[in-house]
């Protein structure tokens, strides 16, 4: 509860939030968009955003260890694992979003809000990054990756490293069957620790293509002139990030104000420009949903992760 019950109308929220002066955000979205939205928020309200950015399981782990220890350091938490947030709700760690205090909650699409507590803020579509010097023509189809020409030339981020990768693979398995994954294994795909080294190696010409890859990884490379391009093949999915507000955190008002900002058009543009799909649809600079986009199911993916890994021969 804390001081959250004390305040009421919208104007007061800003004032109360500004009195708190700071908001702490545990987040696993890449650094650049996170900094963009944090800066935008600070410019708008003069409230600093303290960002704790880590891989999503680490965020989840820290958040829950702290809560178990009776603390709530993070005012907001953003991770892709919706099932984890469900678990947090059951433990009473998250706060139901108060409709009367969040101006933008009304406009927010219903399918992007879950249990009135956590909401989708950003989705990065998954694609294939390839080296344009080494591959003159972009792959058209997932099955192009089975081309013997690419044997030993494809990097793949470790599916055990990230649940979203498993969710993505499970969609491919659904579509093409297990043989497809086994075919990839036969084509000598190489495992890399994460999407970063994979894509960096593609840019350097070490490999021809890598997947799954994300706009946040490919964009900075492209900007520096690397011969690398990201294509989205159908079907695909994305890394969907959900944000929730903590119950009993140190800055309840700033947390609400920031959640509200994330739902605003301005916030969405700041967060998604060039990187992600906004739940509000096509806003200036945000990415459109690629053809064949399917929402990921992380809970199922968790069950299949080991099996998918085995199919790929890792």
């Amino acid at each position, binding site marked *: 509860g804390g001081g959250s019950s004390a305040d009421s109308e919208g104007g007061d929220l800003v004032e109360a939030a500004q009195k708190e002066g700071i908001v*702490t955000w*545990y987040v696993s979205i*890449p*650094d650049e968009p996170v*900094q963009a939205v944090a800066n935008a928020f600070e410019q708008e309200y003069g409230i600093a955003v*303290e*960002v*704790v*950015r*880590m*891989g*999503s*399981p*680490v965020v*989840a*782990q*820290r958040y*829950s*260890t*702290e809560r*178990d*220890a*009776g*603390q709530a*350091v*993070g005012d907001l938490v953003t991770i892709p*694992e919706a099932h*984890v947030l469900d678990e947090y709700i059951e433990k009473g760690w998250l706060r139901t979003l108060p409709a009367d205090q969040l101006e933008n909650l009304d406009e927010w699409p219903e399918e992007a809000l879950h249990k009135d507590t956590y909401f989708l803020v950003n989705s990065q579509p998954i694609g294939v990054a390839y080296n344009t010097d080494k591959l003159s023509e972009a792959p058209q189809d997932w099955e192009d990756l089975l081309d013997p020409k690419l044997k030993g030339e494809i990097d793949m981020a*470790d599916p*055990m*490293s*990230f649940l979203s990768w498993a969710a993505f693979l499970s969609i491919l398995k659904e579509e093409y069957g297990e043989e497809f994954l086994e075919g990839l294994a036969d084509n000598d795909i*190489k*495992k*890399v*620790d*994460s999407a*970063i*080294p994979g894509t*960096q*190696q593609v*840019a*350097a*010409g*070490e*490999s021809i293509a890598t997947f799954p890859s994300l706009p*946040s*990884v490919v964009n*900075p*490379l492209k*900007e*520096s*002139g*690397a011969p*690398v391009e990201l294509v989205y093949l159908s079907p695909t999915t994305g890394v969907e990030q959900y944000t929730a507000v903590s119950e009993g955190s140190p800055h309840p008002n700033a947390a609400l104000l920031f959640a509200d900002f994330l739902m605003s058009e301005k916030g969405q543009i700041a967060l998604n420009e060039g990187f992600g799909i906004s739940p509000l649809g096509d806003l200036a600079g945000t990415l459109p949903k690629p053809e064949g986009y399917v929402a990921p199911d992380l809970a199922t993916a968790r069950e299949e992760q080991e099996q998918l890994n085995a199919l790929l021969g*890792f």
Partner: protein
Amino acid sequence: MQRPETVPLGAARPQRATRFSSFTLVSWVAAAVVVAFIVYPVGRAFIGELGMELPAVVEVLTSSRTLEVLRNAVVAVAAGGALAFLIGAVLAWINVRTDARMGWAAEALPLMPLFVPAIAGSIGWVFLATPEAGFLNYWLRKLLALVGVHLQTGPLDIFTWPGLVFVYALYLTPYAYLAISSGLQSLDPALEEAAQVSGCGPVQTLFRVTLPNLKPALGAAVLQLITIGFALFSVPVVIGTSAQIEVLPVSIVHAVTRKYPPDLITALSMSLVLITIVVVAWLVERRIVAKGRFARIGGRGARAALVTMGRWKLPARLFVLGYLGATSVLPFLALLLVSFQGFWTPQVDFGALTGDNYVDLWNRLSVRRGITNSLLLALMTATITTLLSALLAYLSYRRRSFLGRVVDGVIKVPAAISHIVVGIAFLVAFAGPPFRWNGTLLLLVTTYVVIFLPQASFYANSAIQQIGPEMREAAEVSGARDWRVFLRVILPLMAPSLVAGWSLLFILSAGEINASAMLAGPGSPVVGQAILDLWTSGTFPLLAALSVVITAVSTTVVLTVLALGGRPNSGNAP
């Protein structure tokens, strides 16, 4: 505190003075606090998490995956360690005993490779030796093309078993070197000269006399290699993953960082394996040393003429320089080059080099604050750990008691536990009430101190063993009490070795990544976290730039401290 009785006697025993000085009190309290800070969190993690789950533990321990990663770890550490041992021994011999030694290199060499954080150094080697895009490969291919050999890829490939073992060896060598060279320095050179006069050439002398008599130092080196090798994470995560080789410490870290809820059972069970290995190695080493028919430090003025290498002098020097190049210079240059590139590519366009990455780094608040925080932390950790280890070393040196040995044993335990597991254990134990240290620098410092205490105590113990007991006794007879003896005599005499140890700790804690990921708070970002962040979501040039900055900063700090801290080996009795 009573010394074990020598002989029971019938007569009335004179009373042993039992006055508790403030020094004894403080040092035992310090020892107790240290032990508590190790036993409580570690015990809580292991007993709390594993106590109820024995069947699960057994299952993890017997699963084929555990066995495989364990086998991989054993192979990597055995092969890399053996290589490191060999290189370290040869380097130590060249630098301590031959005329091929290079003054400055002899002192700076042991620390050099550690100046580049292990994760950055490994990435540096990725830049250098990936089969297609590696700089070395690219240039080698160009060279080979000149002589008519045309290759598409290679000739080197870092993502292989040999590549992995190679980088393991590079990073383990300093530890072997440090232990062996300090042993060599205290081995009476007359033993080797006697062999020479008996008709032995230099190489034969090395194998027939020097090495057999160095067994205690070699044992210490092996022990260090085993402990540090099995805890090494950065090298296998960068190189092993792409080589499809997963090793135990990486599995432990992954078990807690890649899943939610974290698989603590797996992580802790695997840690148990490592602890067992280290404890067994420690016991074996103690037995070997205890048996010992080894040379002790020689009589007065043990001053040797350096072995004349003759025509082997140049090759020996090249070997030393080659090692420096491989561990420090080459990867650092690769990192430096990439840090000025827009993206990592072997086709260096010197016109397009840019300082943007540094600007970008500077603009990241968390990086900027991380660097200052890390420096502060490293300063505190290195200082506290060094002083603490000096105090504890003095305690067990002064009073050879059972309790002292227990303390000595306990502070070695964290060396065997993955840093991230220690991090979690500390988070579980101290984040909540009554401590509520979550997110504070205090929590980080405490954890670092525990993590690095084993290394520090290695230095402190070897430093104190070089001080003759009469230095302390002279102070006591002069009327000095414990504090004065320690502060005015023992500590200053240990200083040269402690300074070297301090430098090592400074570097290691400035670049620590795993425990930091668990413990660094929103208000206290550290460099390690920033590195890990760039590794999981960033670009290699940025990562390279950060590594260059860290390397430059730590090198500056360490060299300054070494320059101010005086030269080693001036602490002996006149």
